[in-house]
């Protein structure tokens, strides 16, 4: 290929306006209200009466270029060549023609793509790279998403929960997927400190940077067999993997100890209650690829107990707060352990400093 003589820099992304469906462009900023048509299909009505129908389709997020071309073809067939993606990695098809809805859904079904994820459903799972593409994961992300969504597929396709339920997966504490504020979070966890490969530290690592990479000051410079290296104070390490980022001679992966913790009750929307962090429900489940049965069972159980007990519009954490967390453990049958009691900074905030107790 003959490359252009001079490459452009800092041109930024193309302007979004050229990617808007004509009806969206025409009614930009004048939408009046929306209504649900059926699961996965919503209509927005503009002040002037124009309508745009949105059909939300699932995606594994990690896709091939051919998958994208499949979507592009459907956009050409039904949506005048326009489509978009959501913050949770679904694809959205927008059409001004109500009659396009069912044929589009049928064509998606032929490609094996279900429609749903709106309103009181489980939407697509925000997630990270895992074993597919990262160096610090304690589990895989795409695999967990696949098996959990397979299990929860009816909750994606139908809107039968008390409120929306957002699941997120992050494969280590860095939480590139920000799982700290979802209704249910699956978090890959390491449980052992990094193993220092003393022979290679000098070659691969800069010691001051490695020492300062540790948020809990667990790493100290050391000399072994006359060579510069580092040691890790095991009692201070909380397995974040930051050191490995600075120093490849400190791998953290530990197949027999790595696994998944489950957290619940976070949210980001301001509706009713304030945004909230997730809270620990299950401290550890083993990595059992390819289908992680312990994890899918746990998620299913949590969703079912919530669905049965929460009132309409109540998010997972709002429900648990209303009934009280002791009742949450009672209803779910989960074990409450010493790990559930915070012992890091600001732990005091999470203790019960009142005699107001429900029995």
């Amino acid at each position, binding site marked *: 290929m003959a490359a252009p003589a001079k490459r452009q820099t800092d041109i930024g992304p193309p302007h979004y306006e050229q990617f808007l469906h004509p009806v969206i462009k025409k009614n930009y900023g004048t939408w009046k209200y929306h209504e649900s048509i059926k699961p996965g299909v919503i209509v927005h009505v503009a002040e002037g009466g124009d309508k745009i129908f949105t059909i939300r389709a699932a995606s594994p997020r*990690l896709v091939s270029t051919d998958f994208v071309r499949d979507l592009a073809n459907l956009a050409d067939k039904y949506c005048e060549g326009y489509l978009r993606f959501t913050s949770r990695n679904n694809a959205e098809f927008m059409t001004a023609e109500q009659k396009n809805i069912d044929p589009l859904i049928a064509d998606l079904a032929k490609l094996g793509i279900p429609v749903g994820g709106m309103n009181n459903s489980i939407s697509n799972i925000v997630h990270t790279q895992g074993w597919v593409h990262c160096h610090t994961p304690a589990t895989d992300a795409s695999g967990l998403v696949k*098996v959990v969504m397979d299990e929860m597929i009816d909750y994606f396709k139908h809107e039968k929960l008390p409120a929306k339920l957002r699941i997120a997966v992050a494969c280590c504490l860095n939480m590139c997927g920000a799982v700290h504020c979802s209704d249910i979070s699956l978090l890959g966890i390491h449980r052992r400190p990094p193993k220092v490969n003393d022979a290679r530290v000098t070659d691969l690592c800069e010691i001051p940077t490695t020492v300062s990479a540790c948020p809990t000051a667990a790493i100290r410079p050391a000399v072994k067999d006359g060579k510069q290296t580092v040691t890790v104070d095991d009692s201070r390490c909380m397995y974040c993997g930051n050191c490995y980022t600075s120093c490849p001679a400190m791998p953290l992966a530990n197949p027999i100890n*790595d696994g998944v913790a489950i957290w619940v009750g976070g949210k980001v929307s*301001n509706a009713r209650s304030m945004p909230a962090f997730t809270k620990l429900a299950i401290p550890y489940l083993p990595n059992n690829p390819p289908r992680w049965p312990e994890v899918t069972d746990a998620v299913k159980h949590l969703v079912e107990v919530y669905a049965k007990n929460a009132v309409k519009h109540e998010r997972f954490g709002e429900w648990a707060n209303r009934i009280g967390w002791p009742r949450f453990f009672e209803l779910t049958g989960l074990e409450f352990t010493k790990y559930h009691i915070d012992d890091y900074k*600001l732990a005091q905030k999470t203790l019960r400093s009142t005699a107001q107790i429900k029995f």
Partner: protein
Amino acid sequence: MADLKYKTPLLDELEKGEWPSFVKELKRAAAKKPMADGLLGQLEKSYRDKQTYWKHGGLVGVQGYGAGIIGRYTALADQFPEVTAFHTVRINQPAGWFYSSKALRQLCDIWDKHGSGMLNLHGSTGDFVLLGTTSEELEDTFTEYSAAGWDLGGSSSDMRTPSCCNGMARCEFACFDTMALCQDLTMTYQDELHRPAFPYKFKIKIAGCPNDCVASIARSDLSIMGTWKDDIQVDQAEMAAYAKAGKDIQGEVVGMCPTACMSWDGKAMKINNKQCNRCMHCINVLPKALRAGKVRGATILVGGKAPILEGAQLGSVVVPFMPMKAPFSEIKELIQKLWDVWGENGNNRERIGEFMLRVGVGNFMESIELAPDPQMVLHPRENPYIFYEEYFEEE
């Protein structure tokens, strides 16, 4: 399908089930691209051994840019030579993630030419993420994208690619034009996006209303969230229509209002707007009858982040209400001050939220020239360890 080089019995289990399968996608790419085949082989081994085989990437990039490419190498180059180098290219997505089929095909055609044929739509920062190419391909890949009108997103210690909800394009709740602001900030700060010069990453996310569909409060250092100042607009005729249609207005709306500021006597909806905290619940449930007020703008929150290093934080309010109209000068002034103060005084790898707490939020507000405001806190301090700065000297 062409014969693939690596057998993947464990991954094949993930082709079963109703949710679209990333393994199927990997195989589609692998039929054309040996790199994707190599990825399948290595991933199968990870599934067998329950561990990753990626090494942390070294520094790779394209000329003139310090960000946008993330280096990635396999630890098993002898077994899976196809993925010896498997770098990520982050392409800056269009605001609101709107595309034309033509644009998507163009993005894909270039990627098929230069990379593994696999991508993430999208990364959690927002970028159009291309997974897997070699160091040698990078310049050509970028040259072609650039010629086609696309640019790189952020990575490393820079302003990360801003992202926003679809706002006014398709949501009646939007209190300002999120996509216009996102595009404007992205273009204004191209240098900050492409050439890392901050203590650490800085993420900007923009939501049109307090529903925060882009999770800005949790996932960005600077969260710009639409809101309104005056009274919720009530269409009593539509209220009556909801009631007639059997909506449980008392139970689902009035009874769930967190500030108990609504009342409904079967005919008229009354709201004590002085008490309303703009949570959106009633508007969410009754979108035909209730709308945000007319004096619209945004609440600005700073400091949201995931746990690393000092623990997770949600963004906290620095400006309760800021008008949000082009040319967006007020928010740009604030951004510049935030960057100046944090850029000068932040430690290496210290997010602005951590910096704020280290220096004291009161001091921080002072340094960015914002007067203390009770809206910044849930309640005044409880702890009496106050560092007084004013006192009397004996004559």
